């Protein structure tokens, strides 16, 4: 009975080590670094640049590579993926091919739209494979900056048309009085 238990645990650990070594031998290696010129304490409206390196560590070429950047907000109670619509116009590198040992270096620009804590990550997949590989994340904090002040905007938006309408009434009354 004891021998069977040992045998079973040996098989399970053997299988696990196979899985671990398979994942350790991923055919793609990814790295993501912030650019050295990025502001140390970025504020809303600043631009950040990140550099990703995608290396084919396998033995066969990777065809139809797709790499994309993702942003996640990690503010407590507000954890969510961020739609990059306003943050970045450059959302993916598509169709590239990488020979074994070759590296694709890409820069990613991002305009900081909203204050908070964020993590950015680059993911990669290819045409043939079913795996998605991700880079290490880069975390940054965006300082809040004064944005539109609703009270002031609303008062201007209401006052100017009213002022012009008042002028129209004034001209009309003036013309009527002249005729009389």
């Amino acid at each position, binding site marked *: 009975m004891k021998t069977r238990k040992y045998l079973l645990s040996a098989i399970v650990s053997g299988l696990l080590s196979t899985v671990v070594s398979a994942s350790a031998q991923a055919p793609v290696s990814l790295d993501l670094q912030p650019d050295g010129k990025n502001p140390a304490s970025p504020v809303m409206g600043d631009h950040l640049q990140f550099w990703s390196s995608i290396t084919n560590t396998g033995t066969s070429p990777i065809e139809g590579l797709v790499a994309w950047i993702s942003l996640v907000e990690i503010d407590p109670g507000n954890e969510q993926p961020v739609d990059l619509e306003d943050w970045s116009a450059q959302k993916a590198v598509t169709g590239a091919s990488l020979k074994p040992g070759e590296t694709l270096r890409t820069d990613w620009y991002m305009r900081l739209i909203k204050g908070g804590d964020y993590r950015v990550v680059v993911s990669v997949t290819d045409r043939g494979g079913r795996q998605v590989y991700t880079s290490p994340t880069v975390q940054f904090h965006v300082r809040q900056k*004064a944005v539109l002040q609703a009270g002031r905007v609303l008062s201007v938006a209401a006052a100017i048309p009213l002022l012009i309408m008042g002028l129209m009434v004034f001209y009309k009354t003036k013309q009527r009085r002249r005729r009389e």
Partner: protein
Amino acid sequence: MNTIWIIARKESSQMLCSQKGMIWLLTFSGLLSAFSLLLVSNTELSLLDNAQVVYMMAGTVMAVGALLAAILGSDAYAGEKERGTLVPLLCAPIAPDALLVGKILGLLIAWGVMFVASVPYLWGVGASGQNLGAALFYLALFGTPVVLGFGYLAMALSARTGSVLASLLSTVTLLMLAASPLVIGPGLRGTAIGRTMDAINPFAGALNTFDSVIIDSEPFSAQMARLLLVIVWLGLCLIAARRNATRPDFQ
């Protein structure tokens, strides 16, 4: 000079002291009000920083100014012809150049009123941000030649074709093409064709200057090439208007 001033006063008062002029101004302020309300009510737009919003609003003001120039310019000669007042005007002792200058001065005054009406809106969205003064200065410096250029172009077409409709359609179509950078994203503008369009399009040149000075706080020296572009645009449109205004189609 007196003749020019009389024509300019007549043109501007037709636009500004009349019911139709006030309705135009009300429509313009309604547009800017709606745009401002959209900015504060939309969750994503309200998160834009002040500089970005001022840049967007400056572009909108210039586009509406150019539209006004297209309408007034189209009416300048062909409108007179359609109302039957062109022949008496040509028979009067007014030099063709004086008539052209008088009409463009009228347009300049109307654009000036629009500019003044837009100042509170720009202040409303940009007072707590950066470069509001620069935004106003560059809107005047770059917006005026772009707007007057469209006015001259519309006048040239108006004198050439003798038809308000033909001139208006042609100028508005060209304006829509020129103002397309307002709606297409930076990704499309980054292509080779997009960059070429940006290099020759005065409207895009002015927009890129607004972006450069309002958002990126770049100095005046960085704007020289674009300033040259809008001046060349104004010059070419002036030449076209002068050529056609000397022999307007009045038959």
